[in-house]
Structure formats: C-alpha cells, structure tokens
C-alpha cells in the first residue's frame, strides 16, 4: 500500500471546485513531481491533502488511515508541508521557526525534539549557523532552507513542497534538489510541486501532470522522459 493515496478528490474555494476527481499517490523513498501550468490545481491538491482546505470531498489515505473521515480536516500526523513563498515568520529566530515544526508534528519529549533538530541540522547546516538570527533577515534561499528544516523536525515521513524553487538562483535550486534527493534516499516520501519540469525531472521518480484541475498523466519519470508527446504538454 502507498504511504499517501488520494482518490476521487474534488476540492475548491467556496462553491468553486478547483480540482476534480483527482487520484494520485506517493511512496516512501520516492520523489513525486507534481507539474502543470499556473491554475492547474497543484497547490489546491496539496492544500487538500494537508487539511488546509474546508471544501474537500473524496478520499485521502495516509499511512493506512483515512484522513477525511467524519468531515475532519486535520493534518495527518507524519505529513508536513513547505508552503509556497519561502514562508518563515520574520520576527521569530531561525531556532523558533524550526521549533514550531516540532509543535506542528504533535507532542514529543524534549529529548526527541532535540534529536530531530540535530538530524535536521545535519541535513541543513545553515540551521545551526543562523539559529539565533531573525527570519526576516535571511535571504530567499536561507528562508527556504528554514522552511524545509521546519518540515523535517515535525517527524514527517512525507513532505509536500509547494514550488520551493520560485525566486531562487539556479545554483541554490541545484543545492536544494540535492537536499531533496538525500531526504528521499533516507526513506522520506517527497511530493514536489514544480513549474519547471526539467528541474523536477532531475530528482523525480514519478511524474503527475495536472491540467485544469484534473490529473492527465501519472507515470514513472523514466517513461515520462522518454515520451516526446508528453513534453509537448509544456
């Protein structure tokens, strides 16, 4: 069974449905690239899975548990989100920003929290270097790393990343992709929303293409790369 399995998902804002009857999945130790043009419904799908949206119908099964049961929209434990826009709290220090990730993941002992933070600092050395610096003083790339660190310390086994490369230099994006690959190799499931398909394919294991609120392609990255007709979608 997949770690994350979505089926028949219809969701939107108010009475307007932005995604229709969507099915997708994410596996442990894999990067699933979710690609599509602006307005395709990628962020809506992520927000629906993460329990941010109210107006959601269908099924989201995470780690064997149906998360939409009983109209609940709570975030499944073990799932973390890195939202679009390099989201850090500007008046909080890097340390406080990251520690909020532990809070978001649910109650844990101080020792467990400290261990998670140590592991995250191992993946992202910047966290330790800038621990006492205010979020508002960081560059775009540094903010993105803090945002990823916050997701890591939540103890998540699946991380949803919403266009993390927007606004970053090619070198920073390359470095960030290496971090994602390392996390994938450590066994995490990563769902990566990207507009830059070439960029996504550098680390993706699976590719899901969305258009007008529907999934139109769901294939392995290898197959996607080899079919020229699919590239014409972009």
């Amino acid at each position, binding site marked *: 069974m997949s770690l994350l399995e979505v089926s028949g998902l219809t969701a939107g804002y108010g009475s307007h449905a932005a995604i229709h009857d969507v099915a997708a999945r994410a596996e442990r130790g894999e990067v699933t690239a979710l690609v599509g043009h602006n307005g395709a419904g990628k962020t809506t799908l992520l*927000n629906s899975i*993460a*329990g*941010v949206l109210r107006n959601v119908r269908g099924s989201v099964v995470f780690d064997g548990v149906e998360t939409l049961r009983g109209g609940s929209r*709570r*975030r499944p434990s073990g799932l*973390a*989100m890195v*939202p679009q826009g390099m*989201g850090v*709290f*500007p*008046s*909080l220090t890097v340390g*406080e920003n990251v*520690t*909020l*990730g532990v*809070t*978001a993941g649910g109650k844990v002992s101080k020792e467990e929290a400290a261990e998670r933070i140590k592991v995250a600092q191992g993946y992202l050395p910047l966290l330790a270097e800038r621990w006492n610096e*205010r*979020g*508002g003083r960081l560059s775009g790339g540094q903010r993105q790393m803090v945002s990823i660190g*916050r997701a890591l310390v939540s103890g998540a086994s699946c991380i949803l990343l919403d266009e993390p490369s927007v606004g970053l230099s090619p070198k920073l994006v390359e470095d960030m992709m290496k971090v994602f690959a390392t996390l994938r190799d450590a066994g995490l499931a990563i769902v990566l929303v990207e507009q830059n398909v070439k960029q996504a394919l550098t680390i993706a294991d699976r590719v899901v293409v969305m258009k007008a609120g529907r999934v139109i392609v769901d294939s392995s990255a290898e197959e996607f790369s080899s079919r020229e007709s699919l590239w014409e979608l972009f």
Partner: protein
Amino acid sequence: MLALQLLVNGIAVGALYALAAVGVALIFWTTRVFHIAHGATYLIAAYTFVSLHGNSVLLALVGSTLAAAVFGWGMNKFVYRPIQRSRESFFTLFVASFGTLIIVANVISLWAGSGPKALPPPFGRVQIGFLQVTWVAIIAIVVAVVFLLGLQFFLEKTETGVGLRAMADDVELVDLLGLNRRRYATVALILGSVLVVPAAILTTYVQGLTPQAGLRIATIALIVSIAGGVGSLAGAVVSAILLGVVENVSTLYVNASWGTAVGFSVLLAILVFRPSGVIPRPSAT
C-alpha cells in the same frame, strides 16, 4: 516638585493603561480584531471584585480574574470564531465587539444600577523624599512591571508564546503549517482579558466605578495600542505611559478635566507625524 509628583502619578496611571492596551494588542495578534469588548472585560472584572470584596479580598481577586478569563474565552468561542468561520469582514467583527461592550454595560446598569460604586482606599500614602505617593500608585507600577515581564517571558520562552508571536507575523502561515490557530486565539483572549484585571481593580480603588468606565478604558486601550504601533506590545506600553504622564502633568497648565483630551491630542499628533506608531512591529504582515 509638583511636576515630579504629577509625573509619578502619571506613570502609575500609564502603567494601568499599559496593562489594558497590551491585552488589546495581544488579542489583535491572533484574531485581527480591534477588541473593543475589552471594556466589557474591564467592567465584568471590576464589578465582580466590588461584589465579592465584602466577603474576602482574595475571593474577590480570584473571582474577578476567573470572570474576566471566562468572558475572554466566551468572546472568542461564541462571537469571534463563528463570524470568522463565515469569513465576514474586519468591520463585522469590530461591530460585534462594540455591540458586546454596549450590551454588557447595559446589563450591568440594570443589575447593579448606573450610579458610581466605590471601594474604601486601602493603604494610604507613603513619603518618598519630598514626594507623597499613594500605595495604590506603587502597587500599580509594581503589578504592571511584574505582569509585563511575565508576559515577555511567556512570549519568548514557552512553546505557546512563540506560537502567539508567529500568529502576529502571519496567521495564514500558521494555518498552512498545521499549527493550532484556534488554541492560540483562545490563549490570547484569556491572557489579554486577565491582564486587564489589575487595571480594573486598582482604577476602581482610585476613581470608583460606573458602567460607562468600560467604554472609556476600551477607547484608551484601543487608541494607545494603535498609537503605539498596531500589534506592537512595546509600543502599547510606551504610548500608555505617555498618555498617563501627559494627562497628569498637563494639569499644571489646564483644568484637570482636560487632561485626557490633551493626552489624546499628543497621541493624535504622533499618529499624524508617525502613522506607523511609536514603535511599529517591523515585520508584521
């Protein structure tokens, strides 16, 4: 010498204003509501204290604190949250808050009468050098310092405090991260409401109490928290002290009944020349 005496009195009054204004700022962080119903919390705390005072001061203290906390919790659960759930505007929330203050003030008038209530002055005065300072003024300053330092410690050092500061920065991001926004709002309403309790009790000792006092303190808290810089706790404290000092020191030159008007004029002038307030929150979104 008189000026120095008035300065000390002004700092004491300002310290009480600060407790009320910081509550408003804290509640604004998490709800984005200008919580004018803070005046109702003030009335509930003060009238509860006056009602129970005859039995035991300790009972009155505990009772008024509990009453304020329960009212703050109830405002969030039964007024703000349902309105926010239906995505109504800032103005709807403001009107609901204002309406609650009017209703509470009227209910109290019906129940306790609209005439003034007074408490016997408890401790008299103390001579410090050539200054005569009331014990109430000293208690006001000490209590305000203790409460504000306690709040600072809570916001800096506890997990919930950091969450409240995160709410002040970006409520949407708090939601996206799956943090418990509702819990933070509840904590802010309760904490902000409890902060107004010492202001309500000590002001009642000095000035007495009428149902109209709620609107007065709400107006002061609101204006002070805006002049301080919306959502800025430090700004709220500084502008509250400033208002208290100007109100008192200005009586050297004008009739005492003009004190508040002169104080507000100074805050208005600050807003005209520095619209972001005395100490704006630099990174609030």
